[in-house]
């Protein structure tokens, strides 16, 4: 093709965009990790839940950047974008319905199956956890497997 000069300009912009998106993804990942570390120190259940929500939003944001720029979908024809993205909207319903179902099942079982609920409330003795906490490369793993 004859438009080499124009193409060169496009090239510079395209490479610049790649590095910009890389930087953006890195920053988003670092924010996610910072939230993850922060979450470990928080006891309030509702705060942890809110942080998890923020992490999920950041995850979707990252996914958008990968698909739009790395996979180049943003620069494709609108008809192609729609044929890929529209079917994926089913996930909105899938996720909502299934997670609601899981939560409902838990509540129903806890209400109507007291034995099962009691079983899940028995704490395992601390020494077991101590053995796992201290666990490192030298710990004997084989005997444990034999028990299973």
């Amino acid at each position, binding site marked *: 093709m004859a438009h080499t000069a124009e193409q060169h300009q496009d090239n510079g912009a395209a490479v610049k965009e790649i590095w910009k998106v890389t930087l953006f993804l890195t920053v988003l990942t670092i924010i996610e990790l910072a939230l993850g570390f922060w979450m470990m120190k928080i006891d309030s259940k509702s705060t942890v839940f809110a942080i998890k929500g923020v992490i999920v939003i950041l995850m979707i944001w990252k996914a958008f950047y990968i698909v739009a720029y790395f996979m180049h979908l943003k620069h494709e024809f609108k*008809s192609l974008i729609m044929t*890929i993205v529209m079917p994926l909207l089913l996930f909105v319903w899938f996720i909502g319905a299934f997670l609601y179902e899981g939560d409902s099942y838990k509540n129903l079982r806890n209400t109507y199956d007291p034995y099962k609920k009691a079983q*899940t409330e028995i704490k*395992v003795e601390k020494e077991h956890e101590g053995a796992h906490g201290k666990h490192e490369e030298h710990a004997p793993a084989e005997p444990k497997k034999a028990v299973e």
Partner: protein
Amino acid sequence: MSTVTTAAVPTKLWNGGKSPFNVEYGKLMMWYFLMSDAFTFGAFLISYGTIRFSSNGWPDPNEVFQSFPGLGSGLPLMFVSLMTFILIISSVTMVLAVHAGHNMDKKGVVKNLVLTIIGGAAFLGCQAWEWSHLHHEGAWWGMNPFLNADGTQSSTNFTNYFFTITGFHGFHVLSGVVINIVMLVMTLMDKFEERGHYLMIEKAGLYWHFVDLVWVFVFTCFYLI
């Protein structure tokens, strides 16, 4: 008058005579394959979420995934961050390879493909280490040595989902590395120079980015939240 109609017809996308998607057949099919694969991964992850929502207790990922090779344990999130960055960087080198292909720059394609393959292999190495480490701790399909976050007995759902989903993702990474190696050999054999285009690199690139995309979800669902 007739000139007006002939000029107007091609601008309509669905009137025929040109591709309404403006992409090559193979690339379009790669998109559809990836969409179906997204549903497979989505089904796995949603199933995991459903079971987790229906359980009274669940292990704390920061207590399970807390080891780093050579540095011991007590380091939650560190190793998986490394894996995440490896995959992001290998995705970037893949974009650069696709970009070099657009410019018919064989040297750039080879260089960036090699870097992408190294990144993929490094990720697989990390995953192999993590799997064998967890296996040594007694975790496997059907075996769960970890307790729930509240100190109660955990079920094997946790390990079953972890190994199935990261295993399925790891298998995709392995396939991606193999595909990239094939692309590298084809580039070195001047196959794409003969064809006059590097569209195959673009399709392999789409697949590779998809693997990175899935990791974003797996990483968040298993290690972060």
